């Protein structure tokens, strides 16, 4: 039922919004939602931080860009390759890295993000160096070009929809429970027979593949990529989306991605003070809704509901 409403909402939005600027903004929200969903599986559910997720986002974008621009591959062949290589790299990184916990894991993933950023910038023969890669082809489905109208919007949000279902099913399964168990107490999860190190590696790979998919969609949307789109600040922004939206909440990823994309647009009216207000809003959310937007809103809803029902019981007496 919720899925039908969500799909309908996507379809109606795509039909209703025609202003190209807003369509593009909404498409970006979709791409960020995929990133946030993936990181939320790792951070919100399994409790493992990654401060280098932009690296996987960049891998998806660069692998697809390099194969399509330099080697004239079809994007639809580039996509599985990009996802596969990202998964492989994520796996190789995760095996030693996820032995670390807490701040140390944060540092480790941060370092990995830095290394890939330098690689994107310095491997000029492939990546075009600091000036980036131009002329990434637009996506086509058969004879339909997704470049025009709202085609790309529907593609991205279609992918978001599928990612939603994937995440929801994992969360509500044996695997999802084991992930949350690791978050709450890794020792107890182990004592229940959960192979904690293996599961952490797999959820890291899953989350990297999501980021890679988002990178692919990003590259073919903007047709030009440069290393600054995948630097440290981007990693931090994805983490912020997850935290602001609500850890361990699938809808929170959507909310966080929307807020962090729309907020800078709304704040243009503050001109020079834009970033200050932006920071203040984030601080306010964390101070008043420390569990993130979704949990905070749900909690206040439940509180007002119980207050209302108590008031109505009192009125009956």
């Amino acid at each position, binding site marked *: 039922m919720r899925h039908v409403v969500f799909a309908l909402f996507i379809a109606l939005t795509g039909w209703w919004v025609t202003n190209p600027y807003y369509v593009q903004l909404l498409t970006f929200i979709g791409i960020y939602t995929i990133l946030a969903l993936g990181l939320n599986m790792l951070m919100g559910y399994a409790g493992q931080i990654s401060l280098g997720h932009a690296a996987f986002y960049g891998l998806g974008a660069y692998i697809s860009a390099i194969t399509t621009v330099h080697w004239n591959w079809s994007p639809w062949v580039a996509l599985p390759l990009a996802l596969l290589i990202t998964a492989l790299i994520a796996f190789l990184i995760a095996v030693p890295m996820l032995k670390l916990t807490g701040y140390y894991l944060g540092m480790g993933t941060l370092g990995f993000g830095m290394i890939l950023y330098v690689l994107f910038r310095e491997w000029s023969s492939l990546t075009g160096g600091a000036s980036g890669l131009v002329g990434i082809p637009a996506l086509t489905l058969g004879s339909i070009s997704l470049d025009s109208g709202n085609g790309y919007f529907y593609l991205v949000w279609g992918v978001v929809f599928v990612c939603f279902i994937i995440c929801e099913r994992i969360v509500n399964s044996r695997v999802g429970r084991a992930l949350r168990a690791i978050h709450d107490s890794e020792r107890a999860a182990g*004592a229940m027979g959960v192979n904690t190190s293996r599961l952490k590696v797999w959820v890291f790979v899953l989350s990297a593949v999501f980021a890679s998919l988002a990178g692919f969609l990003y590259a073919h949307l903007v047709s030009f990529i440069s290393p600054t789109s995948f630097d440290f600040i981007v990693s931090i922004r994805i983490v912020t989306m997850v935290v602001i939206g609500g850890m361990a909440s699938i809808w929170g990823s959507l909310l966080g991605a929307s807020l962090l994309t729309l907020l800078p647009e709304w704040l243009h009216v503050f001109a020079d003070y834009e970033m200050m207000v932006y920071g203040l809003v984030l601080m306010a959310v964390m101070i008043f809704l420390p569990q993130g937007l979704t949990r905070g809103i749900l909690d206040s809803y439940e509180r007002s509901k119980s207050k209302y029902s108590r008031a109505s019981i009192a009125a009956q007496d």
Partner: protein
Amino acid sequence: MNDQKASTAGPQSLLKIEALYKSFGGIQALSDVSFEVLPGTIYAVIGPNGAGKTTLFNIITGIYPAEAGAIFYAEREIRSKKVHELVNRGIARTFQNVELFESMTVLENVLVGRHVRTRCGFWGAICHFPWVRNEEQEAHQKAMELLSFVGLENVAQSRSADLPFGWQRFLEIARALATDPRLLLLDEPASGLNAVETEQLGILLQQIRDRGVTLLLVEHDMSLTMGISDRILVLNQGRKLAEGAPREIQADEAVINAYLGRE
């Protein structure tokens, strides 16, 4: 591959510890500790603080390795096996300070206990195969059955952190039982419980034994251990001081001197 057959025959013991040694820095936490636990019994390990009880417990459950000695479970050597492998073979445990999954509901906690007896992975979850649904349903049934066994079926949907401490301990036992253990290790199950709860715990542990689960408990509370245990091992400063039925322990000179105190 590493499984060797136990060298000595005799009555089929479920757990057999042979000459275990462990030291931390200069402190000898365990030296030459040996004992056998027969299936279908309650075996208690007691001793004053620092006697090596918890060390022994952690070695059996695979948290850290022993320096020397052997541990046989169901006739197979289990030293150096990983924790989740031990659970798979039927060794479950509870923690001294109760380690629940606090953000999860009571029911979900027990469902995590079913982890080793179910097999749905990432693909199974994503594709939502019919067998996954059946497996979930069976796990739910089993979990609810265990919750009513420990008397928590009415709070199945509450957050586990919101339960009173005594109930949390019972929930932890239900969660451990969900792994279908043959051997259940309990680390000071009565600590933090009041007299009534301790009595309920004693009854529950005997019921668990009657279900065919062998229990090994490390305990401080003398009334509990003396009342329900079939055999007791007394440790003192990492060494075996005495072993026997509760009556023999209560009468043992060395134990009275070291632990129970002279009247």
